[in-house]
């Protein structure tokens, strides 16, 4: 998984406008194979429009999209699995027939299709619902059926637009596990979400979009590292006066049970720990605090405006 690996997907200066409204503005990004790529940003940032261009529902006004090293075309659609944000299933169709239909639309037919459908229903704990009409299913179940339609043809690239909405905690875990399983099988996954905490846990790379523009992209670890602000999360008793020393600590913030301190420039966390122990404080927790995606995002958006 080096940077030299040929990217699965390349967007090159892609722009899409609807009338006067620019939905995606000069967006460039690369998605590398076998990784979970997070497309994150607030609602209305342009995530869905970007995805629609990737799956060839709409065509960019300008710019180039390349998938598996080829220019985007209808034939490549069969190698993509797509879970759209606005979900839709035929309400009156039985679950099994519905899955068969979508499998055939992706050129998976006959016995092969039946086997895969049964396997997935089993996995998603939906086997008992195969002959029921879709409208009789709960929202979470429908969501899982929809997910099966996205993976039934064993796609090389899986695009999931807000896959966790409407799921209960148990199913969120099931979904996360399934996504990671796909990654282990070498699939490339694009995960679009505005839930930063989930993106943080699942993604290898992220691209942040705000108001149609890319604000940041790269490996999640590197991004967080580059944004690390020399901060420490503490749980201590005693030694309080020490934190008022401006030559040591520039900012103190209470975050739940944690006390978050921002160290003065040039001060190493080790020095703080040493000084705390010397001052007789009881240290219950001492952790180097990396900024969350949420923090980074807020910071970037503030920067831009």
């Amino acid at each position, binding site marked *: 998984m080096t940077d030299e690996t040929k990217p699965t997907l390349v967007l090159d200066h892609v722009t899409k406008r*609807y009338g006067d409204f620019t939905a995606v503005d000069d967006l460039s990004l690369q998605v590398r194979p076998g990784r979970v790529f997070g497309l994150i940003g607030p609602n209305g940032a342009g995530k869905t429009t970007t995805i*629609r261009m990737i*799956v*060839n*529902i*709409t*065509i960019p006004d300008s710019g180039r999209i390349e998938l598996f090293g080829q220019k985007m075309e*209808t034939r490549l*659609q*069969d190698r*993509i699995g*797509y879970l*759209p944000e*606005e*979900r*839709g*299933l*035929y*309400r*009156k*169709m039985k679950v099994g027939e519905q899955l068969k*239909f*979508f499998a*055939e*639309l*992706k*050129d998976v*037919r006959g016995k092969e299709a039946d086997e895969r459908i049964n396997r997935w229903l089993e996995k998603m704990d939906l086997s008992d619902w195969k002959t029921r009409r879709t409208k009789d299913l709960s929202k979470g179940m429908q969501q899982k059926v929809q997910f099966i*339609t996205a993976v039934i043809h064993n796609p090389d690239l899986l695009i999931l637009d807000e896959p966790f909405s409407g799921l209960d905690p148990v199913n969120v875990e099931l979904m996360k596990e399934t996504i990671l399983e796909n990654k282990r099988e070498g699939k490339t996954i694009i995960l679009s979400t505005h839930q930063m905490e989930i993106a943080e846990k699942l993604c290898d790379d992220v691209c942040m979009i705000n108001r149609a523009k890319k604000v940041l992209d790269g490996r999640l670890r590197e991004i967080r590292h580059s944004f690390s602000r020399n901060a420490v999360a503490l749980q201590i008793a005693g030694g309080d006066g020490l934190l008022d020393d401006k030559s040591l600590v520039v900012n103190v913030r209470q975050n739940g049970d944690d006390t978050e301190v921002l160290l003065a420039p040039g001060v190493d966390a080790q020095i703080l720990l040493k000084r705390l122990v010397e001052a007789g404080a009881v240290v219950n927790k001492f952790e180097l605090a990396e900024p969350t995606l949420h923090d980074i995002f807020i910071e970037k958006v503030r920067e831009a405006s």
Partner: protein
Amino acid sequence: MKKFFTVIKREYRQRVRTRFFIVATVIGPVVLGLFGILPVYIANLNSGAATRLAVIDQSGKLYDAFEHALTTEETENLDSTGEKTQSNPQMQRDAQFGAQRFQSELVLLNGRTLEQGKRDLNERVRANELDGYVIIPPDVLGDGKPEFYGRNTGDIFTRESVADRLSRAVREQRLAEKKIDQRVLREASRPVTLVSTKISDRGEEKVSGSGFTLVFSFGLLIYMAVLLYGQTVLGAVIEEKETRIAEILFSSMRSFPLMLGKLVGVSLVALTQLSIWAMAFALLAGFGAGMAAAKGVPTNIPHVPPIVFVCFLLFFLLGYFIYATIYALIGSMVTTVQEGGQLAIPVVLTLLAGFYFVFPIIRSPNSPLAFWASMVPFLAPITMMVRITTETPPAWQIILSLTIGFATVVALVWLAARIYRVGMLMYGKRATIPEVWRWIRQT
């Protein structure tokens, strides 16, 4: 291509299996049967009690003739041998259908004044011993005006019948006084029967006269099919918009095979149903004809040459598809079926425009007007059928007309697919014409 069939299969199976489809398919022939059998049955019923009339005959010589006219059917259609002619069975049935029976009695004034007689009769009408009475004036054969008094003068059927039958009595009386024999008169006024023979490339053919009716029922059939299934096509196109499945569909296939697949799928459902109905109708008609033949009533099943039958099928398909596609096109622009239904009506009415061309084309089926009218796809199903049944045009014209027609269908589907694809990305609003135009150029 496989995906195209996948769409057809889904549309077809989902619809054919609905309870609604099955019920409608069964109910159709039953209703048809009822409409075929009921009128005949009703016609055979006695049309209620006889209407009771009293007659004051001031002329003193008309009552017998009037009574005869009241109690017997019109005999104009009898020829000299007293046998019913075959010339107009329809009229005979109508006469029978509207038959009204009368009972009459002659009332003599016996010294009473006319006023007193009327007063007495009024009493009897009020007491419901009579339904009405007629006063025949003395100079009824001249300018005298008979009068009808009744409880229900608003009943125009009775009034008309009385007037008719009284006229008949008066006419017969006048003829008798001029010493003219009824039979001589009937013989003299018997109409001629015109036998028409069509000269075509295949020589001379007797014309059954059914061509005109054939075309009209043909047009009506297309119209019915479009009205019945147009809404279904509309619903099929809008379905994914409402449930937003469209995104998955578009991420899996092109919009043109999708749209065409939907149209063909729904149309196969329509054709399945129509075929079942047609077979039921054929069975019923065959059964009816058999029944009639058994009763000795000659039936005339129109002879349709096979080539006309093939054209009939082809142009029916063309007519159906052209208008069904318009529903698909409208479906691609709107967001709800209700909206679409309203928009579709004016467009489908253009089908009726085809009927306006029927008369000029029947008069000269090879005129330039006829030619061009049969090349316009929206008119061709009706106009070309008129030409085929009157004076069959050269084969190349029929083929050209069909080609133009089906090419138009494909073009319309393509257009619908294009509008649909762009339109679905802007949920929840109806497209304006400029927007639609922009969408067509987009993508």
